[in-house]
């Protein structure tokens, strides 16, 4: 096997590791928020909304963490994976 072939085999693996790690960040964050909501349900004011003020309904930390994870996954990750793939292609050429 030539040295060129070995380098071609190694590059995609490295790229795949990075892509998988980046793609995991958003869901992992959202999962943390969901687990937190299950562990401390009293922090989800929406479950008992009567008599609560605006801020208690608007700012619920576990839901905010889930929201951040989802937004990161939907807004940042797709473009980042595209750019990572492009950079990998350029490097392997």
């Amino acid at each position, binding site marked *: 096997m030539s040295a060129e072939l070995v380098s071609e085999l190694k590059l995609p693996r490295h790229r795949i590791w*990075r892509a998988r790690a980046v793609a995991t960040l*958003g869901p992992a*964050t959202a999962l943390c928020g969901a687990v937190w909501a299950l562990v401390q349900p009293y922090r989800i004011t929406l479950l008992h909304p009567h008599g609560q003020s605006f801020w208690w309904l608007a*700012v619920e930390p576990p839901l*905010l963490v889930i929201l951040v994870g989802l937004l*990161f996954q939907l807004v*940042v990750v797709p473009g*980042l994976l595209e*750019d*990572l793939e492009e950079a990998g292609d350029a490097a392997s050429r």
Partner: protein
Amino acid sequence: MQPPAEHVHWLFGTGFVILSLCLLAEAIVGVDVWRKRAWRAYLWPGTLFFMGVMLWPVMTFFTNSTIHMLAHGAWADVLMFAGATELALVRGKLVSPWWRLATVLAFVVSGSAFLVHEQNTWFFQRSSFLHHLMGWTLLGVAIVPFARCLRPRSVLFGSAYALTFVAIAVILFCDRDLASVFGHLSPLAGSPHR
């Protein structure tokens, strides 16, 4: 319509979660890939700067003591300075990596402000405990942005930097206006709200 203090802490905690996700992604894919799109390059420095700006209303409206006001003002200053420096580095207006020391300054000033403005002991109530913890955490981990200043492309230091913000977010999310900490609550603190 003024939010309770604990909600403000939680909102800033959310800001730090955003920062940590962006920084972790940047550390994983590398600076070159992260900065391929202009909006993404400005995302986390812009968030840092915005959090600094949002500390001004906090300073203005939460005036329960002068030292609180001064501490919030100091945080607003150093966060805006660190955010502006990072924005200028991304834009190319600043070139020397030593400008990243602005973040080290932000950590040291913030940590000191936490310790100085907390007048009660660790176990007085939860917010006292968290102020002490946050202060010492920020002072202790100031070495991380310093290491990142020396080796800006290191995955290890980049990830450690991101995880530092995760720790800050967790501490902020633990905050309550008046609550016990590990079963300790001074009778001088008052009775818990919830």
